[in-house]
């Protein structure tokens, strides 16, 4: 809500700098998002009286002479279509500054001297949306009631000398969505009681209440008041009212519509004015819409009504969407003479949903949805009638129709002085608290420690003691609270055990030189299960923003491949990424989340260098990194098994599934050509990576360790070179070696693999290095030789290996 500082002065005697006041309000009540002083930055902009005006032939221009209160009139060339002799207009003199810090200088237009510029409101800083309709495409012309004379600054007449405070309210503070509400709030802050005036309306026309039969569902509209005014002359509102409207961001329309808007700004009660002809049938019904009913709104939007929309009908067709916007068919127009005014309370939730459903939130609906003051229904409708008599020469018909008239009892909240002090950490006396509550115009009864507070109906947000804590606290001033630390029994902070392990994993891979990435959890259904060994039912959102972000990922790799594509497209081809995060599925009808780790490598291990010592990442580099990780986190490598596997999205002959004690824990390999070829940026590239289910290995990770001394006895190494059929895997050979090596084999390494022309076709040669160690005694050659013999014999028997 845009609150005018000048208007606030109707209620309060403010003498602060508006910016200081705004800071105070921000710290105490409602955030003031900005303080705007419309005339700021403008210079030498005055009222001018157009003495004569003639069209310049062959152009759209007019040559005018304008009295600006100086000895001689100024000759000014003006291009606006609506310039005419006799008008009072806005003149930017030579040397003026207009909106956008633009400087106006005298000059020649089409050879004619022009000593200034006649201005449109937009040119002096008005927003298009607040300029009265007839001046949107032309210069502004002061109305007769403007009381301006040539040479005056324009700022005061146009309300630009004002300061506009933008109340950026939270949903609980709808009470400040009116000038009166703002005055209560500001009054409490500056410790001054606002002057809120009551209205006395004298009806001066015949009783009209028998003309209309209003049938209103009390659940939809617990309060529903109607008045009638007759003999309305539609025209412009007085300038003072237009000023207040445009300073509040509302475009002046005509004297009837403006009154409804003005009353809403003043009291917070949304009003509606119907052309009385709308109800010539003598019927008005407030009900829920029926399926299939349609209504064209004032903004020309045709909507199909929903059975949960509240509507007002003439007994037959909808004429208004209650609390949101009127219908075109009941609009007050230039020929309207009789007007029916509506001041009502509609169900806030239904109004909110209707406005959302039809994407048509309005000033009115936003007030209803947050709660309006039930005590202002009468006042609002009376002020509106009174203003219409003043502004539009209306006669106020006697009588009101109060189709529903529920009352709302003010909330009574009981609390104690000690409770409030305990929560705030203050030591305020009950007197001090009562004073604070009185500033808010809350009535308080004190009984020892007990406070009984009656909260006016305008404050919807106060129902429980904690709400009073807030009121006392903020008016007392959060700046005045002490800054302390909780004095509590000692607690031992830290990470959970699972979290500690995740952190260890991240630390290791980061130490391996990987760069941490974070990708989106939502992806396409297809990518969600790509790179996934055992896809599960998807967790999908009901209303995705787009189809590429509709399903929760079941793997992290897809995000890293997306990242690779993004980077490759930018010529960054050496990538060493990891991501640690969750994957999500809907297996067994429950939503499950698992912590994963994925890495992705591409390009060179080293950066390009002048020594040309480059090595491209490949399967075995990545596998080595993974093995280092396993070792660093204490995973027993003897329990790990790699099996060639085919996984969607992975290269079918360069991918392994990884098992720990027979349980699947992840995969490692190269991204399939089918994936990289389909992506322009990745075409022809080799991407490698692995993905681990960290939840699956969590239980086996060691918790704490005991150190052993370094071995005191020397180890003995032996090499073993063999020739074997090509399709025998290293893992098969190692299994035979391990099974036959005896208890002193400490380490087994592959040191060479050769396939090629120097050996028999269909065969390959492998070489192993074996390290034997007895931790308790010196190992003899004899023992080792025996073990080696056993190994070679087993290899020859089981795998038809030739020893070389």
């Amino acid at each position, binding site marked *: 809500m845009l609150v005018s500082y000048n208007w606030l002065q109707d209620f309060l005697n403010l003498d602060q700098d508006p910016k200081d006041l705004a800071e105070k309000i921000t710290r105490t009540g409602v955030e003031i998002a900005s303080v705007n002083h419309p005339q700021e930055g403008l210079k030498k902009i005055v009222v001018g009286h157009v003495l004569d005006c003639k069209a310049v032939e062959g152009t759209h221009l007019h040559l005018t002479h304008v009295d600006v209160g100086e000895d001689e009139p100024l000759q000014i060339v003006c291009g606006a279509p609506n310039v005419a002799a006799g008008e009072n207009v806005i003149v930017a003199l030579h040397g003026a500054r207009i909106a956008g810090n633009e400087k106006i200088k005298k000059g020649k237009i089409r050879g004619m001297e022009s000593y200034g510029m006649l201005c449109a409101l937009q040119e002096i800083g008005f927003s298009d949306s607040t300029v009265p309709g007839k001046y949107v495409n032309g210069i502004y012309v002061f109305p007769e009631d403007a009381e301006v004379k040539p040479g005056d600054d324009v700022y005061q007449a146009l309300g630009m000398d004002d300061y506009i405070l933008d109340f950026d309210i939270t949903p609980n503070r709808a009470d400040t969505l009116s000038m009166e509400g703002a005055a209560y709030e500001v009054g409490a802050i500056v410790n001054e009681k606002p002057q809120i005036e009551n209205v006395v309306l004298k009806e001066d026309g015949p009783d009209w209440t028998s003309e209309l039969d209003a049938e209103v569902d009390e659940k939809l509209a617990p309060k529903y008041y109607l008045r009638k005014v007759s003999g309305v002359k539609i025209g412009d509102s007085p300038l003072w009212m237009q000023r207040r409207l445009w300073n509040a961001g509302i475009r002046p329309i005509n004297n009837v519509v403006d009154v409804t808007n003005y009353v809403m700004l003043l009291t917070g009660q949304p009003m509606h004015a119907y052309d009385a002809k709308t109800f010539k049938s003598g019927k008005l019904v407030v009900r829920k819409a029926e399926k299939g009913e349609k209504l064209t709104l004032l903004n020309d939007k045709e909507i199909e009504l929903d059975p949960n929309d509240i509507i007002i009908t003439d007994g037959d067709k909808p004429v208004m969407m209650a609390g949101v916007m009127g219908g075109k068919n009941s609009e007050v127009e230039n020929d309207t003479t009789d007007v029916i005014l509506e001041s009502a309370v509609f169900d806030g939730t239904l109004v909110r949903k209707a406005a959302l459903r039809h994407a048509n939130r309005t000033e009115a609906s936003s007030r209803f949805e947050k709660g309006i003051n039930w005590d202002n229904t009468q006042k609002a409708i009376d002020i509106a009638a009174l203003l219409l008599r003043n502004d539009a020469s209306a006669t106020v018909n006697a009588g009101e129709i109060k189709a529903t008239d529920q009352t709302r009892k003010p909330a009574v909240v009981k609390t104690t002085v000690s409770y409030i002090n305990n929560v705030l950490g203050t030591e305020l006396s009950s007197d001090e608290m009562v004073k604070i509550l009185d500033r808010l115009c809350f009535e308080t009864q004190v009984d020892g420690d007990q406070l009984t507070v009656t909260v006016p109906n305008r404050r919807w947000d106060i129902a429980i003691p904690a709400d009073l804590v807030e009121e006392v606290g903020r008016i007392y001033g959060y700046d005045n609270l002490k800054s302390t630390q909780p004095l509590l029994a000692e607690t031992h902070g830290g990470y959970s055990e699972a979290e500690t392990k995740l952190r260890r994993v991240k630390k290791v891979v980061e130490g391996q030189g990987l760069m941490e*990435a974070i990708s989106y959890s939502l992806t396409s259904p297809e990518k969600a299960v790509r790179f996934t060994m055992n896809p599960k039912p998807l967790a999908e959102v009901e209303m995705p923003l787009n189809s590429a972000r509709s399903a929760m990922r079941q793997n992290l790799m897809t995000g890293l491949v997306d990242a690779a594509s993004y980077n490759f497209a930018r010529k960054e081809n050496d990538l060493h990424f990891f991501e640690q995060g969750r994957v999500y599925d809907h297996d067994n009808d429950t939503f499950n989340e698992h912590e994963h780790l994925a890495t992705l490598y591409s390009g060179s291990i080293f950066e390009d260098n002048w020594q040309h010592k480059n090595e491209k990442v490949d399967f075995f580099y990545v596998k080595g990194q993974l093995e280092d990780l396993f070792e660093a986190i204490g995973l027993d490598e003897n329990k790990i098994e790699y099996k060639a596997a085919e996984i969607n999205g992975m290269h079918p002959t360069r991918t392994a599934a990884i098992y720990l004690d027979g349980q699947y824990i992840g995969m490692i390999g190269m991204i399939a050509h089918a994936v990289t070829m389909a992506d322009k940026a990745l075409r022809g590239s080799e991407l490698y990576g692995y993905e681990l289910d960290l939840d699956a290995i969590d239980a086996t990770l060691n918790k704490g360790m005991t150190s052993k001394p370094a071995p005191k006895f020397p180890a003995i190494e032996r090499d073993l070179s063999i020739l074997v059929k090509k399709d025998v895997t290293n893992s098969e050979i190692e299994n035979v070696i391990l099974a036959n090596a005896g208890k002193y084999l400490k380490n087994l390494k592959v040191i060479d693999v050769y396939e090629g022309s120097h050996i028999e076709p269909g065969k390959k040669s492998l070489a192993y290095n074996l390290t034997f160690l007895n931790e308790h005694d010196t190992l003899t050659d004899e023992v080792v030789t025996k073990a080696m013999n056993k190994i070679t014999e087993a290899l020859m028997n089981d795998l038809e290996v030739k020893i070389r």
Partner: protein
Amino acid sequence: MDLFDKLKELREKGLEEIKKASDEKKLDEVRVQLVGRKGELTKILHSLREVAPEDRREVGQRVNELRDLFNKQLDDSKKSLLAAFIAKKMEDERVDVTLPGRRSHVGSKHPINIILDDLEKYFIGMGYTVVQGPEIETDHYCFEMMNLPKDHPARDMQATFYIDDENLLRSQTSGDQARVLEKHDFSKGPLKMVGPGKVYRRDDDDAMHSHQFMQMEGLVVDKHVTMSDLKGTLEMIAKHVFGQDRETRLRPSYFPFTEPSVEMDVSCFNCNGKGCQICKYTGWIEVLGAGMVQPNVLENAGVDSIVYGGFAFGVGLDRFAILKYGIDDIRDFYTNDKRFLEQFRKEED
């Protein structure tokens, strides 16, 4: 020629030979020839029988002196030969130290996790436990337990991704509060927790909005926790993250799960409060939301709100990172551009 002359001659010849030896190998040959087991000096000793008994002692002494001399000269020569050899080798091995090194890749942490880890460590030091909750959350924990019943207008403030009527992608980490409150045994001491994690909102991605981001929730509940404690705690966080010289202010705000609710601003670190584009000319930058736990939230979790109370706060980690590192597009956190991420190698948590 008597032995004395022989010795004299040997001395001259020997020293000459040592001097002439140009490498270690030749020097070793000289050593063998002069002082070796079958060398010249040994030969002289063997011929000692020919010497008159009264001269033997002196000859023996001279031989020993000469041996010492030779050994010393041989050692010196060896040392200088070695020194010369090393000097040459070093000269041959000279590298241009100004050429660049061969670089691999230094790991880096994601900027949001740098902020998160820093805050976690900070809170752990103050006795907080780090808690993780589910990202696919129920409406019950995410909203209803947090005093946001269905139809609550504040739900409109957070467009939520629903999976079905009951399950959703959490739009806030607050659900962790409810879960922890339900489980906590207050007889064993106060509750102090932080709960970081990913959250999701139905916002189209642009420079200011992201449908996925990271939050951290904080909660302290016990018998005597005050708003002054909240103020003190928030001020410490702000100063820890944004600098000791920052000023802070609390503003009333509104969250369904706290009452009173506040937001905290810090004085703009770009303009120091004078007003600039970053702080939208207010001099202040909003950094977090907080408040005293709404009694309904405690009661919903079975905690007696008459006896227990406390404070809660929520930090947008993306926002912290944006402010701390001067990032102008939130999407930079999630596109994983190497050139963006590698800057954070330098940053410590």
